[in-house]
């Protein structure tokens, strides 16, 4: 168990500076367009402000997923379910609450209603996760992975099949739900895209700060103890099942928040982004960034999303007749290679390797110096 030593706080400081600088710089370019520059131009049209907002939204989700997978050591193969619950909750309740629940139009139209819906979605996801996690996490091994896998597919089918209803139009089946309003605070609308960019990244940074605080709190230490050895943790009086269920619920809450933000950004939702493959993509992102690293979250998301944009726009030129989905080969290979060679993720893995290489070089230098002195 590592205490929050000086090294770690230095790392966090560097992390904050790098993240703030990147987000600030890209945002500044994207919003003010100095000298006619655009983010899209700098990256040959592959990365736009739109991509950067998606990275911010998924960062919120990934921080939760990393807390669950890296710190509590529980794999979730269905986190897109909670992401979807948030998105559909926002979509349905901001566009159809009047018809479905009979809530008066003045309430649904008011500026605070979407915010309330976001909170409702988070509470719903969190309770669902806790209810399912509590009994299942009592079992050993990878049972949560199996249950979340089932949950993820179940929710995808529910979204796709209109929750099983025949007549009523609820989730809109394959077509989804259009016309989701933008978020507002009183009279101030968080739109155009530049405002939403700032809003999303402010929230993402808040969530990162929350994650960093959590892992150095009592809960975080308990989780790390569980990850190290469940038996030892239990012997030290840690209530293993409760802590695991709690972190599962927290990660579901963050996923739901991200889903709501996605719905208000996209202004429409459809079932595809919440499928099983999407859940796998989240696991890949988490693995790339480093399972047990909060700072790995934005890195992992950015890495995969940017690679995907590049593959989508360039693969067609390399492979004749390749459709967009070929990037999944790459996901698979990345996942395998990282898990074999750098199970701690690219960020942590490269840092560690660099550090050990540096210290070895220093040792080598010391060794040659001393042997040279002794030999002659």
């Amino acid at each position, binding site marked *: 168990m590592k205490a929050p030593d000086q090294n770690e706080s230095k790392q966090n400081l560097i992390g904050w500076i790098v993240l703030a600088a990147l987000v600030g710089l890209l945002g500044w370019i994207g919003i003010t367009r100095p000298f006619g520059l655009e983010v899209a131009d700098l990256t040959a049209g592959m990365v736009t402000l739109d991509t950067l907002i998606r990275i911010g939204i998924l960062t919120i989700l990934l921080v939760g997923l990393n807390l669950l997978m890296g710190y509590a*050591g529980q*794999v979730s*193969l269905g986190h897109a379910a909670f992401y979807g619950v948030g998105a559909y909750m926002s979509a349905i309740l901001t566009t159809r609450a009047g018809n479905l629940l009979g809530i008066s139009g003045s309430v649904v139209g008011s500026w605070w209603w979407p915010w309330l819906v976001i909170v409702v979605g988070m509470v719903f996801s969190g309770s669902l996760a806790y209810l*399912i996690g509590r*009994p*299942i996490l009592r*079992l*050993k*091994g*990878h*049972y949560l*992975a*199996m*249950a979340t*896998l*089932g*949950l993820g*597919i*179940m929710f995808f*089918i*529910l979204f*796709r*099949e209109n929750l*099983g209803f*025949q007549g009523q139009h609820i989730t809109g089946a394959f077509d989804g739900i259009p016309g989701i309003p933008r978020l507002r605070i009183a009279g101030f609308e968080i739109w155009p895209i530049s405002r939403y960019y700032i809003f999303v990244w402010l929230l993402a940074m808040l969530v990162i700060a929350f994650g960093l605080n959590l892992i150095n709190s009592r809960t975080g230490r308990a989780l790390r103890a569980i990850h190290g*050895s*469940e*038996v030892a943790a239990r012997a030290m009086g840690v209530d293993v099942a409760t802590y695991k269920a709690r972190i599962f619920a927290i990660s579901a809450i963050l996923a739901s928040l991200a889903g709501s933000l996605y719905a208000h950004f996209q202004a429409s939702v459809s079932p595809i982004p919440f499928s*099983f*493959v999407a859940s*796998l993509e989240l*696991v*890949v992102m988490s*693995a790339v960034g480093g399972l047990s690293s909060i700072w790995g979250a934005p890195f992992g998301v950015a890495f995969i999303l940017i690679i995907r944009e590049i593959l989508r726009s360039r693969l067609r030129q390399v*492979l004749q007749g*390749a*459709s967009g*989905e*070929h*990037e*999944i*080969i*790459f*996901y*698979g*290979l*990345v*996942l*395998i290679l990282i*898990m*074999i060679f750098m*199970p701690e993720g690219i960020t942590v893995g490269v840092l560690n390797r660099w550090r050990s290489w540096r210290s070895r070089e220093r040792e080598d230098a010391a060794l040659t110096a001393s042997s040279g002195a002794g030999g002659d």
Partner: protein
Amino acid sequence: MNRTRSDNLLRTARFVAVLLLFAIPVVYLGIQRNYGVLQFAQLALDGLRGGAIYALIAMGFVMVFNVTGIINFAQGAFVMLGGMLTVTFYQMESSLPDRLHLIASAVLAVIITTLIGILIERLTIYPARKSSTLTLIIITVGVYIAMQGLGLLVWGAKAYVFPAFTTLAMTDHVFRWFGLVIKAQSFWIWGSMILVLVLLAYFFERTLLGKAMRACSVNRHGARLVGIGAERMSLLAFGMAAAVGAIGGIVVSPILRPSYDMGLSLGLKGFVAAILGGLVSTPGAVLGGLLLGFLENVAAGVTKAGMKDIYAFILLILTLLFRPQGLLGVGKTAVESSSEDQG
């Protein structure tokens, strides 16, 4: 021992009774749709056909889990490879008569899939064998994704057609007994399931290699002490799981229109079936598969066809919540031993 066994039987009975409670709304919904006994029997029969496929795939999951403690999500890829390779070979020109051509294609597909399974074990599982089980599971997920992508690259996104085994044509021979309609292909599916089950039972009970594999699953360290190479057994388990998965993919192809992504849903259903069976017993996997196929088809029959998959995963979560050791109650040891390896 005796007491726990009767206790176990009681719990199994209770779980099955709870599942049967769901029969009430099913019958009610069926009556509303004017279903008679015949319609229900037809739904059940079709369900058992799908269930046999799930059972075949579930056996692959069980084999790998028993020996290595890994849930091998790449199992679906073996199913896809079996089906797609057979289609590819069968479409090639050959001087053989059609029936022999089909058999040769199927045999070749099983052999190649087995080799791919062995290769996957060597390239991805073996280098990471010292990692935690969780890491290994994520690796198999990666293998599945990569294989599906590879399938897309090789075969494209279209669905292929495959002739029924009996008639070697698109339209299968159909038996009509007592008003029930049974395709001849169903018998091929049931037959291959029984054949694989019998062969595996013989292998595990009667041959030295099979006994060594069983020893590995009972106690890996103990097996090593008596000179059984766990790494060789892991290789064997992946090869055999790939072969069984490929057989499942081949026999299902005539009723499914095989495509590059057929492995996903079939693999996941096979996984649910394996969990139902407790994840450690081959007969349990078969029982789980048949039960899963039966329940989901009847439930979908009285509600909505698109909802079919949802019943399978509701069943998965119910099992994990209330009966994690599986229908037969044999999975308890596996739950414990897998946790040991994790620590």
